């Protein structure tokens, strides 16, 4: 088990290296760079930079170097734990990202917890009360939940809250807390706001997980050990919770592998629509403005989060299921 985890951990730097090449190629790909668009905006507003200034800026950001040197310089600063300077904000990228990374994680993890808390009981209920009204209702809701893109759900909810109650459910804080430093009151305020985006981000996953849970459990409920358990006089609740539910939850651990990364990056579009200050909108802005080091940094962080998500799920699966554990060692 330990060896398996170590192996997986050793793979992380390799993957990150490959991703860093890919990411750099991506942010480097658009024609022109931040400076050219910056100069264009300046000249359209009447002012301009003289040649010397442009050259100085180019040198400062290393934009005058060939691509591979630029990459090496970027990697070098990455290895020193720095993500470079944002061209647009004129601030270190690490600061910009650090401000918002916490919220990304909190949002994704709370959506994750929401999903599991809702999906598992719902799946169990659906499977044990098959073909009842509530089961049908769950199935219908699941299909709609899977079919609704989460930004669409956000739009509908925002429109509904605004037109019915005049409420704005965008943002994560009330206005007075937006710029305030962290405090207990701000935490409470965050909790008051976070549940709407949490549900919006988590709902599709909840629908899918409920379906998987229901199908897994249905397979188990037909097994002979259920009959023998009943014959021995176990109560239905005990019988279901003790054996088939545990069997049915095991494969769900493997869904974490794709679900966690999906939550991290899936919140991106919702965050843009609902004006949540996480790294999603920052990435979008930096991509549009060709703020390449900022975009590259955020993309790498998304990659890292995706790797971690898969790792957690694999380790969890090996830990939960002895059959997989044996096979691996």
């Amino acid at each position, binding site marked *: 088990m330990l060896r398996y985890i170590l192996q997986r951990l050793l793979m992380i730097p390799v993957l990150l290296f490959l991703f860093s090449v890919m990411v750099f190629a*991506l942010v480097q790909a658009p024609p022109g760079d931040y400076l050219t668009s910056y100069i264009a905006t300046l000249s359209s507003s009447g002012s301009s930079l003289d040649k010397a200034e442009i050259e100085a800026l180019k040198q400062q950001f290393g934009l005058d170097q060939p691509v591979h040197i630029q990459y090496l310089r970027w990697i070098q600063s990455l290895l020193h734990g720095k993500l470079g300077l944002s061209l647009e904000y004129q601030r270190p990228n690490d600061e910009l990202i650090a401000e918002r990374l916490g919220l990304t994680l909190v949002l994704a993890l709370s959506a994750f917890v929401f999903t599991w808390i809702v999906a598992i009981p719902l799946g169990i209920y659906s499977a044990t009360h098959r073909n009842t009204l509530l089961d049908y209702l769950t199935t219908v809701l699941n299909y709609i939940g899977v079919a609704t893109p989460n930004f669409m759900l956000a739009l509908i909810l925002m429109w509904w809250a605004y037109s019915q109650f005049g409420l704005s459910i965008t943002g994560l804080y009330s206005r007075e807390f937006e710029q305030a430093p962290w405090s207990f009151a701000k935490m409470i305020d965050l909790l008051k706001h976070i549940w709407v985006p949490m549900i919006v981000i988590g709902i599709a996953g909840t629908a899918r997980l409920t379906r998987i849970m229901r199908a897994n459990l249905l397979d188990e409920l037909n097994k002979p050990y259920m009959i023998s358990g009943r014959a021995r006089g176990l109560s239905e609740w005990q019988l279901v919770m003790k054996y088939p539910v545990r069997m049915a939850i095991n494969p769900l651990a493997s869904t974490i592998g794709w679900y966690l990364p*999906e939550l991290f990056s899936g919140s991106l579009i919702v965050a843009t629509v609902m004006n949540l200050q996480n790294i999603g909108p920052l990435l979008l802005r930096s991509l549009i403005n060709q703020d390449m080091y900022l975009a590259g940094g955020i993309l790498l962080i998304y990659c890292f989060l995706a790797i971690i998500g898969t790792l957690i799920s694999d380790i969890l699966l090996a830990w939960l299921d002895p059959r997989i554990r044996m096979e691996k060692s």
Partner: protein
Amino acid sequence: MDRVEPNLIQPEGSQIPRNAEDESTVLPIPPLEQTRSGEELLSVTQEEERISIASNWTLVWWRFRKNKLAVASTVILLFLALVVLIPEFFATFDPEQTDARLAFIPIQSIHWLDEGRLKPWVPGVAGKRDPVTLKMLWVTDESQRIYLRFFAPGFSYKLLGLIETDRHLVGAVDPEKAELVYLLGTDRLGRDQWSRLTFATRISMTIGMISVILSVVLGLVLGGISGYFGGWPDMIIQRLIELLQSLPTIPIWLALTAALPRTWSPEKVFFAITIILALRGWTTLAREVRGRFLSLREEDFVLAAELAGCSQARIILVHMIPTFTSHIIATSTLAIPVMIVTETSLSFLGLGMRPPAISWGVMLQEAQNIQTLALAPWLLIPGLVVILAVLVFNLVGDGLRDAADPYSN
């Protein structure tokens, strides 16, 4: 599994009573019992006969047919496909026609009955200027009735690019009033939503389908190589799949589409997006194809084909692939909605299709502002169409997947 599930296929119009209870209501005479069971026995063998000579595709169809939800979804899907083929016919306006004065006209819902007779009409609209903001505000006016007819004349176009015509599905009876029928309202620039929606359906659906076709081709080729030949190509392809699958999809897609030059024409962007979507889409399918090839390679019929001297290409194309075509179709049907949602999201963020191209995502860009939305909620309709399309694709895909393996229980 010793007997074929008898209710799998009941011949339609079969008059043979299924059990004793049905029988007793009609003929309560015991001696007939014997002949009846004899007949039933015969009918079962006939059924078995029918099943045993049915082709794989017939079995899939019989099984698919039983899933009513999937069949109903197929009908909706066929209708959407028709819109994709001839959006001009369904449209009532040129989708690019703008008139800022006609902005935010509300939905004019179709009333089918007029004084008890079937005579479809829509209410007229009346505009008045807001005295403060000087904006035009439009409301529907039930007292005016604009009568509608089918196959009404309108702007001329080429049906399927071939036949010159000016007929549209619906339109005003009175050509004078044709300019006042906005079935799904208008947007910020006074463009007719209904007409734009038909053209958006064409673009969004084709993006989904083309990228899935690309994924299928890539998945078949690479998955096939991986599973059939094994060895180092398998190693490389598997690592590549793992690498691609561990990428965070949405951010990478964003970066890829952001890298497309702004100067590209809509057609170029269209194809670039289908390729971008297919770049990762093939991995799931390749895995499945590889698994199939691995297990099929050991089957007797493949060995027999080899011994009979078939070429490798023939074994793969004629003997192996047809055994899992239905699975490929099911998997790709389920992949289309994913592509559609991704394209919609990217376009919605302004990074996918860009105006003047019209897709569902491009139309939804108009719905980004919450104040506008409160004023004109019908701007959300393209989103509902997305949900409907994804829903029917999923239902059809699920039905196909369940039907794909006709010999399973």
